[in-house]
C-alpha cells in the first residue's frame, strides 16, 4: 500500500515558511491543547516543539481512548478474561493498562485466552470459527473506532453469529471538550481539534462549543505541515482576539461528517453518562450498546460486578489530561511510573501523554 502522498505533507521548505509565519505572528504567551493522541504522537515524532517560539506551550488533552478508560472498566475486562467460556479480543494498546490489581497482559500470561486483533471484524471471524466459546470484543475508542465496532455487531446479527459479543466502553469527544472548556481552572487559550474524529462527526459537532465558550478552535490533520498550518491559524486567531471554529483539514473533514458512520453508530449505541479516568463522570460522553442489541452486549450477558477501588495515589494523570500539569510535574513520572511499569493511564498507551514524553523527551538516562 504505497503512501506516496505523505511526503508532500513533510516538505521542509513549506515547513520552514509556516514556522517563520508562526514566529512572526506569536506575541503573547499562550497554551494550546491538542485533543487527540495521534496529534500528540505526531508532534513528538516530528520534533515540532523544538521549532516553535517560546511563547507557545503545547499541552495534551484527554485524546487517548485507552488512557481515559476507567479503572473499574479495566477490572471488568480482567473479570471477563478470567472466564473459561470467553475468548477476549482487544486492540493491542489495552493489554498493558493496569486495573486495580491486574492487566490483560498479566491475565494472558497466566493462561487466559486474550487475543490482540487489528479490527473488530477479525474478532467476528474468530467467533464464527469458535462457536463453542463466547468471543468478546472490547470496544474502546472515540468516534473514530466506534463505527467499525457498530458495523461488526450489525454484521454478526446479519450472519447469525450469536457468540460474538461486544463490551462497549466508547467515548464521545465533543462532551469531553465541552467539559474542559467549562472547567473554571482551565488554562488553555485555544484547541487543536482532532481531525479523525471530525471526519466522522463533522465540524458541526464542535460548533456549539465554540459559540458558547468563545475559545478559538482549529481542526487539524496529522502530518507535520497539517499541524503547523493549524497552529498558525490558532495563533492568528488568538493574536487578533477572534474565537471561531476553523477547518485546517479540509481535504478530509466536512461540516456534516460521515453520514454512514453516524447512522451505524446511531443504530447500535445509546448515549450515556460516562466515567473518564482522571476526569470523572462527563454527561452524555459515553456510548453503550442500545437495548435492541442486548443479546450481543457483554455487559448484559455476564455478571461483571467488581469492587470499587480508588485510583492510585499521587498520580497526576487527571491534571495532565486537563492540561494543568505536564508529565514532568508529576512526582511519579519516570520514578515509579514508566512504560514498563505504568501507574497511570497516560503512561500506558504509546499515545498517552506521559509515554510520549518519556519516549521522545528523553525519558531514560535523562
Amino acid at each position, binding site marked *: *500500500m*504505497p*503512501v*506516496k502522498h*505523505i511526503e508532500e505533507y*513533510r*516538505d*521542509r521548505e513549506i*515547513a*520552514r515558511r509556516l*514556522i517563520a509565519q508562526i514566529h512572526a505572528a506569536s506575541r503573547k504567551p499562550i497554551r494550546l491543547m491538542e485533543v487527540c*493522541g*495521534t496529534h500528540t*504522537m505526531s508532534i*513528538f*515524532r*516530528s*520534533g*515540532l*516543539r*523544538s*521549532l516553535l517560539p517560546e511563547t507557545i506551550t503545547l499541552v495534551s488533552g484527554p485524546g*487517548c*481512548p*485507552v488512557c481515559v478508560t476507567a479503572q473499574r472498566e479495566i477490572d471488568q475486562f480482567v473479570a471477563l478474561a478470567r472466564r473459561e467460556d470467553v475468548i477476549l479480543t482487544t*486492540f*493491542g*494498546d*489495552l*493489554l*498493558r493498562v493496569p486495573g486495580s490489581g491486574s492487566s490483560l497482559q498479566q491475565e494472558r500470561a497466566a493462561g487466559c485466552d486474550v487475543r*490482540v*486483533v*487489528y479490527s473488530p471484524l*477479525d474478532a467476528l471471524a474468530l467467533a464464527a470459527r469458535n462457536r463453542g466459546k463466547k468471543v468478546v470484543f472490547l470496544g*474502546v*475508542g*472515540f468516534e*473514530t*473506532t466506534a463505527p467499525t465496532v457498530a458495523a461488526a455487531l450489525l454484521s454478526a446479527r446479519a450472519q447469525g453469529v450469536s457468540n460474538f459479543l461486544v463490551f462497549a466502553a466508547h467515548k464521545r469527544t465533543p462532551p469531553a471538550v465541552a467539559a474542559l472548556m467549562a472547567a473554571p481552572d482551565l488554562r488553555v487559550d485555544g484547541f487543536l481539534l482532532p481531525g*479523525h474524529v471530525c471526519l466522522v462527526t463533522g465540524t458541526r459537532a464542535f460548533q456549539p462549543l465554540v459559540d458558547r465558550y468563545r475559545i478559538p478552535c482549529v481542526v487539524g490533520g496529522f502530518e*507535520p*505541515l497539517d499541524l*503547523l498550518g493549524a497552529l498558525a491559524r490558532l495563533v492568528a486567531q488568538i493574536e487578533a482576539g477572534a474565537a471561531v471554529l476553523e477547518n485546517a483539514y479540509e481535504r478530509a473533514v466536512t461540516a456534516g461528517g460521515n453520514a454512514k458512520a453516524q447512522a451505524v453508530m446511531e443504530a447500535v449505541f445509546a448515549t450515556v453518562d460516562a466515567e473518564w479516568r482522571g476526569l470523572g463522570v462527563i454527561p452524555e460522553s459515553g456510548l453503550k450498546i442500545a437495548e435492541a442489541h442486548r443479546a450481543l452486549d457483554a455487559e448484559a450477558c455476564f455478571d461483571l460486578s467488581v469492587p470499587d477501588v480508588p485510583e492510585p495515589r499521587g498520580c497526576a494523570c487527571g491534571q495532565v489530561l486537563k492540561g494543568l500539569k505536564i508529565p514532568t510535574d508529576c512526582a511519579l513520572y519516570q520514578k515509579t511510573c*514508566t*512504560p*514498563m511499569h505504568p501507574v497511570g493511564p497516560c503512561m500506558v*498507551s*504509546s*499515545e498517552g501523554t506521559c509515554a510520549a514524553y*518519556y*519516549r*521522545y*523527551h*528523553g*525519558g*531514560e*538516562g535523562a
Partner: protein
Amino acid sequence: MKPDTILLDHGSGGKAAHRLTTDLLLPVFDNPMLNALNDGAVFHLPGGRLAFSTDTYVVDPPFFPGGCIGDLAVNGTVNDLAMCGARPLFLSVGLILEEGLPMADLERIVREMGRAARAAGVQVVTGDTKVVPRGAADRIFINTSGVGAVPAGVAIDSSRARPGDRIILSGTIADHGITILTQREGLAFQAAIKSDTAPLNAMVAGMLAVETDIHVLRDPTRGGVGTALNEIAEKSAVGIRIHEDRIPVRPEVEGICELLGFDPLYIANEGKLLAFVAPAEAEAVLAAVRRDPYGHEARIIGEVTADHPGRVVLETRIGGSRIVGMLTGEQLPRIC
C-alpha cells in the same frame, strides 16, 4: 515407507534418526567433516583470533516472503560473526522439531539452510536433532553456532565510536519485522514486502578491504536501528545524530507502520548493517557497501557528536529534533 511427518522416532537415536541424517541432512550440507559423523568436527584454523557466536531461531511463521527459518538461522549467525569483522568459516546446527512437523516442511527448511550456507561460503560441520512431543515446541526451533577468523588489525567494538565518525546504514529498514507481522494470523495486507534476510559477510569483507579500521559494526536485528544506536551511544559514551530524510524505508513498509502506529526505527532487520567509520574513510567504505548486492541503497545517515553523550537525536524531515530512546516493551498496535 517414508513417513510424511516427523515422529518421535526421528529423535530416538535409532534407525529413523539415522535415516533422517543420512538421507536429508548429509546430502544438503555435504562436507567431509560432517560426513564422518563423529561426535564433533575437527578442523584446522588460520592463526590469529577467532570469533565465536550463537543464536537461536523461533520465528513464527517459519515460512515468510523473502525466506524461512532455515536461511534466517544461517544468515543470522553468519552476520553476527561478520559484525565482529570475522570471516565466517564453520557452523553447527541444532534442530528441535515438534512431533507432527510435515516432512516436506523440514526438507524445505534444510534445503534453504544448505543454499544459504553455500551462498555465505560457510560449512555446516556438526549438528544435532531432537524431536519433542506435540505441543512442547512450535513446529521447529533452530540453533546455529559458528566460528570465524578475525583478520589482523581489525578492532571492531561497540565502544569505539568517536566524535566525527560517520554512520553508514546499508539499506532500507524494517522490512523483516513488518513482513513477519503481516504474516501473522489476523493481518492480511496485500503488500509486496519481503524479509531482507541476507548474508553480510561479503559486504563486510569488501568494507575491510578498503579500510581495516572500521570502528563499530552492528546488524540492527531485534529492537531495530533505534535500539542498536542507543547501545552504541551508551557503550562509547558519545552522542549520535541521525537524519530522518536519509534513512531509507520502503513506501509499503512505511505505510503499514503509519497504519499500525509503529516506528520503523524499532523494527527488526535481518540483512542490514550499521557501520561507524572515521570521516576521511567514510565515502570509500560507503562505496564498498554499495558494490555489494545487498548494499545498493546504502546511505550515510548521521554522525557521532561529542554533545549529548549516551543520547541518540533524530533530526526530523521538517528540521525539528527529537530523542530516539530505547524501546520499552513490545510495540503494540495503536487503536485510533
